[in-house]
């Protein structure tokens, strides 16, 4: 009987550790759906890119999550930042064409942060999207890629 209580206590302990992780994952999935559906009346969801498990370089610096995608000419794309409500940190999206920065959700000229940006693509090709945590604190975040309907 004593042993059974021990096992129950252990299960309660493990659940208390593991359940928040599970809920947190579900939280982001729900958030992705909300973000995708709230990206604008003219936006159609294409894909989401989750920052995933944080990775650090040899100096202990957080490595941005990188995604490679094919974007097409004459399409207007929308990139939207999507965060778990429990994550208060800052998230920046950066879009590169090869090694050239196309745009970012943080405008260095004005110091202003944006929840996303539209990319009016005029060159079909391979592009790279980075999800960065400028505070150095990783969190649950994703980028939503949408197709913007234009006349």
């Amino acid at each position, binding site marked *: 009987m004593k*042993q059974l209580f*021990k*096992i129950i206590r*252990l*299960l309660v302990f*493990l*659940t208390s550790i*593991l359940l928040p*992780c*599970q809920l947190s994952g579900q939280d982001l999935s729900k958030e*992705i*759906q909300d973000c*995708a*559906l709230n990206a604008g009346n003219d936006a*159609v*969801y*294409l*894909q*989401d*890119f989750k920052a995933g498990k944080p990775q650090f370089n040899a100096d202990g610096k957080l490595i941005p999550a990188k*995604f*490679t*995608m*094919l*974007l*097409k*000419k*004459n*399409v207007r794309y929308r990139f939207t930042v999507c965060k778990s409500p429990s994550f208060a940190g800052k998230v920046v999206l950066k*879009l590169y*064409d090869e090694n*050239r*920065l*196309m*745009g970012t*959700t943080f*405008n260095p*000229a004005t110091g202003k942060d*944006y929840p*996303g*940006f*539209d*990319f*009016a*693509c*005029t*060159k*079909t*090709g*391979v592009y790279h999207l980075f999800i960065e945590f400028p505070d150095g604190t990783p969190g649950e975040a994703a980028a939503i*890629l949408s*197709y913007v*309907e*234009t006349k």
Partner: protein
Amino acid sequence: MHKLAIVLIIAFVLAGCGRKSSRTDFGEISDSLLSESMAISQQAMAEIIDNLSSPVEIAALLKKVGAPFSQGSLANPNDLSRITTENQQALHLGIYGADLGYLNIYNKRTSVVDYLTAIKNLSEDLRIGQFFDFVTLKRLATNDKNLDSLIFISVHSFNQMDDYLRTNKRGNLSALIITGTWIEGLYLATTMYNQKPHPDLAERIGEQKIVLADLLLVLKNYKRDPYFNSLIELMEPIKKLFDQVTITYELGEPEMVEENGMLVIKQNEKSHVEIKPDVLPKILDETKKLRNNLLSL
């Protein structure tokens, strides 16, 4: 004995936590040829470009240029009896996925349920049905509202299936889904071009040269599988035609502007696609041939 029980409980809980929600137990792929080439293929699949072939984008372009809806151009979703191998199932899953995207963009909900049913059956055969929320999709498809949700859940389900396959040593099936989506999208674009020869459509068809090159790179990783080998051989004639398409680039600097509170990036660099007048009709014909061959592969 009690210690053993505790260890077993911990192992059970931890194993359950690491796994995504699943209704079935996933075994190893029996084909030894595939497992031998798995290490290289997994790396190749990890590097595969996202958004390579999007049913939404091609369908949206067709709608934008005013191409009429054509139910007759879609693959028949009602005869799955001869689609028996995993390779066939994956390829057809991609084909029906592209058709579903086309139906959704044109908001033709009466036919959507047939395609949802075919996709459900194929995804269950492939043991990835847990990512396809058939009940919700069917409810949305039979309701006049919530088109955004219908598109989101459809596309998101495919993305999840693709992610799962890639990360669970089944990248070969992911490659086939992408191939099916690609060929069906190209087939719809070329069929509609015959009816509505819009220059934007011709350009999009020509750009498939880039997609095809990436797709073949991935498929060649699995060429030790006879099915993939046959597939690559079937794609050779169209590759030769796309080799004759020229894509040039005009340089320009990007600029960030704010429009109505929204940050907009204007690229100012352009790509130009040149397809010789005698090559385009050949691509249209070859696409039709390839797609019909794939339906029976």
